Every structure is written in C-alpha cells, then in structure tokens.
C-alpha cells in the first residue's frame, strides 16, 4: 500500500506489542464477496485521545468500528486493545464501550435497568450497582429518569441513556457510531459540546465515527479520513484543513479550488506551479513534489484577496465575476478566470460589494497556496 502523509505516528507496519496505544488497528480488511468494504486500514488511538473516523457514507467507517467491537469478523489484519490482541475474541470479551447510531436501548428495560444490565452480568454488589447507575445518570444529566422506559424518552435523552449505559462499565475505550446523527441540528451542536467536555473530563479514550466534518474537526485530537474503504490521511484537524494530503481530503474538508499545472523547483523552500497559461504560481513547499510532475495547486476560498482594481505580483489571477452571493457575514464570489477555470472566493470583512460581471483580480499568498501531487484516481 502507499503510505500517506500524516500517518507518521507509527511508521512500522508490524504490530507493536508493548505500545501504550489504547487501540491499534493494523492492516485490517473486510470483504463482502468481491467488494472490499475496508481495505488495508491502519491507525492508532492513544490513551485518552479522541480520534474520529470521517468520510462519506459507505466508505467503511461503521464496518471498521464494528470489527473493533467484535460484531463483524475481519477478513485480514489485527486489532489490539491496550496491547492485547482481540481480533478473534467475541464482543463480550473485549471490554469496549459502544454507542450505536440508533442507540439500541432494550425496550423492555427501564433506564436504570438498561444501565445496570452490564453491571449485573459482572455480578457487582447491589449497592455498587446502585451507585454506578446514579453516577452514570447524573453525569449524563438523566437523574430522575431511572424508571422511564426508552420509548418514554426523547431522542436526545435516549442518546444519553446509551452513553450512560456504556460509561457505567468504565470501559477501556469508548466506540461511538454517529451517535448524534439522529438528533436535530440544534440539539446536535449542544450534545457535541457536552460529549466532548465529558470525554475530556473523564479522559476517556474515544473512537468516534461521523460523516459530519464539523463534528470531527471540532471534537477530535486527530481525524482519520476514509474514502472507499481506505485511509486517505490521518492528522490533527488543523493539519487536515491546512495541509490536505490528497485532493479527496482537500475537497471533503471544507471547500477548495484546484488549479492543475506542473511543478518547478524554485529553491528557498518554494515550489512553482506552472499553469497551462504559462503563469507560474508560487507556493511554500510542504510535501515533496517531483520537478516537472503533474501537480494541483489548492486555494481555499477564504485565503484570497479579491479586488476590482488590478493587482500585481506573482500569484495574481484575472477573471470576471459570474455570481456574487451575499450571506450577511460572508460574500461568496464565483469567478471565471481568464484561463476558463472557475474559482470560488469568500470575503468575510468586506466594505465593497463587487457586482456580477465585473472584472476582478484575485491574489493569494505563497504560504496560503498548497501543492499536492496529481492523483490519477481523481
């Protein structure tokens, strides 16, 4: 497999038995017939860390999480939890908390019974169980709901019960599969903050699956970006946005403009991107690119200056505004460059409004321009 930038935390393919990491996923695969749902996925989650699996629907996030929990068999690879190999253990032997997308609360049990179930299986004394129920429910803001049945609760409350049920067992690791995706947007934002705060307070090692980039970026220490069953990039949220390793990542996390060209070394840590028009854009070199190789220049819409007056400098592109949209806090321009490409620009602090049809000049600083190798996959 090709190793991607950002996956530098552990550079060995082989399992490290003595590693401190809470979760180690090594070269894990899952095939359904001829379809590879998960294709050679590796990543680690450190003790106390919050890691998200982020990617579009169907990219294999849930399958990966379910293999870690033991609900789905692996077709290859190995999974370790705190150094213990669990790849072939049944789910009940793994000691991992799991929060399901649809909560999966037992409908014939009250809130307290749902939370107590795992504790009873562990044959804890009665008063210990009572204390743990109380604690888990108070932490999740559910005190007073002990005797309710799941169907008597709102979606948000059910979600909290699912969380309380997992937390009461003090699992080594908490796995969550899109736990907020069934809530309405306002509640989702509130729960997101609560969840993150709780996780940080309890220092709970968490692996979180989501297709919502906002969730992943705002909650995680690191994000694993998946696409078509493969890992595209593993990086901290800031890195992911600022230094996307692939076109997919650049596209999936935020909006990006792409300009295709060939690379030319300019020395001094700078790389040039020669556009088909002959113009050369200047960028800071962050990833090695081959001289003369096909590359893409990435320009974030909010990292440009747009002006109706002619600008001069190396990274100036001329064009005409096709569409200008006013959203109150932000102005969005769709600009047709003279070279024919479309470029999107966003202006947050604006004191002039450039009308559609106007001729404009767009400038971006070399440190805001990213260059990635041209990926034949797209």
């Amino acid at each position, binding site marked *: 497999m090709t190793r991607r930038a950002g996956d530098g935390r552990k550079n060995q393919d082989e399992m490290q038995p003595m590693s401190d990491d809470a979760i180690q996923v090594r070269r894990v695969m899952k095939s359904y017939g001829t379809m590879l749902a998960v294709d050679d996925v590796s990543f680690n989650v450190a003790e106390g860390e919050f890691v998200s699996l982020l990617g579009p629907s169907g990219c294999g996030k849930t399958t990966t999480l379910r293999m870690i929990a033991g*609900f789905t068999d692996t077709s290859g690879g190995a999974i370790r939890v705190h150094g213990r190999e669990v790849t072939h253990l049944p*789910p*009940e032997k793994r000691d991992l908390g*799991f929060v*399901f997308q649809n909560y999966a*609360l*037992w*409908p014939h049990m009250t809130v307290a019974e749902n939370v107590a*179930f795992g504790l009873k299986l562990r044959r804890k004394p009665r008063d210990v169980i009572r204390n743990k129920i109380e604690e888990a429910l108070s932490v999740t803001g559910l005190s007073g709901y002990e005797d309710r049945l799941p169907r008597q609760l709102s979606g948000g409350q059910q979600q909290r019960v699912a969380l309380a049920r997992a937390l009461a*067992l003090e699992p080594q690791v908490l796995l969550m599969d899109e736990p907020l995706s069934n809530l309405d947007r306002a509640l989702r934002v509130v729960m997101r903050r609560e969840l993150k705060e709780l996780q940080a307070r309890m220092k709970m090692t968490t692996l979180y699956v989501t297709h919502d980039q906002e969730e992943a970026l705002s909650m995680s220490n690191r994000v694993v970006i998946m696409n078509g069953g493969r890992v595209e990039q593993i990086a901290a949220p800031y890195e992911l946005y600022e230094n996307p390793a692939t076109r997919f990542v650049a596209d999936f996390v935020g909006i990006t403009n792409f300009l295709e060209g060939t690379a030319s070394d300019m020395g001094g840590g700078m790389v040039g991107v020669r556009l088909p028009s002959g113009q050369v854009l200047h960028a800071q070199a962050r990833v090695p690119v081959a001289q003369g190789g096909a590359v893409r220049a990435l320009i974030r819409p909010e990292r440009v200056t747009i002006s109706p007056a002619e600008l001069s400098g190396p990274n100036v592109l001329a064009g005409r505004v096709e569409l200008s949209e006013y959203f109150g806090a932000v102005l969005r321009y769709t600009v047709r460059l003279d070279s024919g490409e479309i470029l999107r620009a966003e202006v947050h602090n604006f004191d002039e409004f450039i009308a559609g049809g106007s001729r404009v000049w767009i400038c971006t600083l070399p440190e805001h321009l990213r260059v990635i190798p041209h990926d034949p996959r797209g």
Partner: protein
Amino acid sequence: MIRRLLPPLAPALVALLIFVALPMFWVLRTSFNELADGAYVVEAMTLDNYARFLGDPWYLVNTLWFSIRIALVATAISVICGYPVALYIVKTTGLQRNILMALVMAPLLIGLVTLVYGWIVIFRGGGLLNSLMIALHVYDRPVRYMWDIKGVVILLVYIGAPYVVLSLLDSLERISPYLVEAARNVGASRWTAFWKVVFPMTMPGLYAGLVIVFSLNFSAFAVPLMIGDSNTQMIGLIIYREALLNNDLPFASALSVIMVAVNALILVGMAAFFGRIILNRLEAKR
C-alpha cells in the same frame, strides 16, 4: 376517538354481532332449556344441564380435566418445537425463507381431514413408519402410534406448532440485531443475550401463540374424533356428540358455555403468569 373510529368499523362490528355475539347468546340461552322425551327442546329456565355436568365425576375428570391436561401438554410441546424453528427461520432470507415458511404453513393449508388420513397411512399399525422400522430391525413388532392419547397429542402439536412459529416470527422480526449486539458488548454471552433480551421481547408473540394454540387444543374435536379412542373423550368431542348425534342441544350448550368460560379463565391465568409488566412494556410500543 370512538366517534371517529365507529363509522369505518361499523361493518366489522355488525358482522361481529351477527356471527359471534348472537350465536354465543343463543348458546347461553339454550343451555337453560330442557330436553323433553329425549327429543324435543322445551323453553325453560333451569340449571339442570349444568348440574348434570358438574355433578358427574366422569365429565369433570375424564372430559374437562382431561381436555385441559391434553391441551396444556400439546401447547407446551408446540412451543418447545416451534421456538427453535422460529429462531432459525428469522435468520434466513430469500428462497430459503420462502421454502421454510411453506413447510411450516403446510399443515394449515392441507386441511385437517387430508392431514389426518395422511397420518393414518404413515402411523397406523401396518403403516409406513412401522414397516420401515421393522424392515430396519429397529424393533420387531408394530408400535402403536395412534388411536390413543399419544396420537392425539402428536397431531395437535403438528397443527398447533405452525401458529406458534408464525406468532413468534412476528415478535422476532421486530427485534433489531443491534439489541443483541448491545447486550454482547456489555458482556453478555450469546446465551445470556438471548435469555435476557430476545426471549423477553418475544413474550407478546409467545403469548399470542399460546392463546391461539391452547384454545384450538382445548376445544379440539376432529382430532380426538378421528385419531383418538375411548380414553380421549375431549370436551369438544362430547359437545359435538351431544349436539349432532344425541340432539341434546341444551346439554351441548351448557357444555359449550363451560368450555368457553374455562378457556377464558386459563388464558387470564396465562397472562398473569407471563408477566403483565413485560407484555405491557412491549405492547404499548406498537
């Protein structure tokens, strides 16, 4: 609410009235009549028919109590046989599912008489089963499989088990596999997850199956008539005989009233036994 529901339900209510309530009322009324000269029904208001039944230990023990026992045993065996089948079928899909469903439903579709005569061909003294067993030297003299209690129970199970399977399937299909996974995740073994999550959640289906199968078994008359002997005088058979062979409609009616009342009592008892809490918790969700 009632006012809104009444118009669409009206035809069903009328049908219910005509085909269920009126006959029931007529049976109740007839049970207080008298039979004169062993032939004519005479309008009366007497409890003689009830007294005749309740005062005779043969009726009490050999028909009523016998019917209850047979019905309970056959129902229990139907559940024991039907539950694993339902658990297996719920995991299948597509063609396999359709074939299994057809096999389960077959006893219900074939019709009782065909079924019983098919069974006779297989199970009678010189039937297929005995011939096969003797040919294979499993035993050397024909074994009696029918015309006794054993045959009646076997056939009642054969007819009753499909209802158990169908009503359990209904419950099982509502159980999300995630609920089992959630149980495994917090430490339950396969067996514990079944026992603590799946089994309680099938209570409504199990109870519905029991209600149908017990009632069918308790009031059975065709099976004991065709496959039983003088020791299998189930109450349904006695009613059939009194009503259609002896023309004693008042006595047959009294027996019917007693049968329905006892049946209702036992079903209420079962509901209590099955834990009203669990049924209520799950029922209200529908």
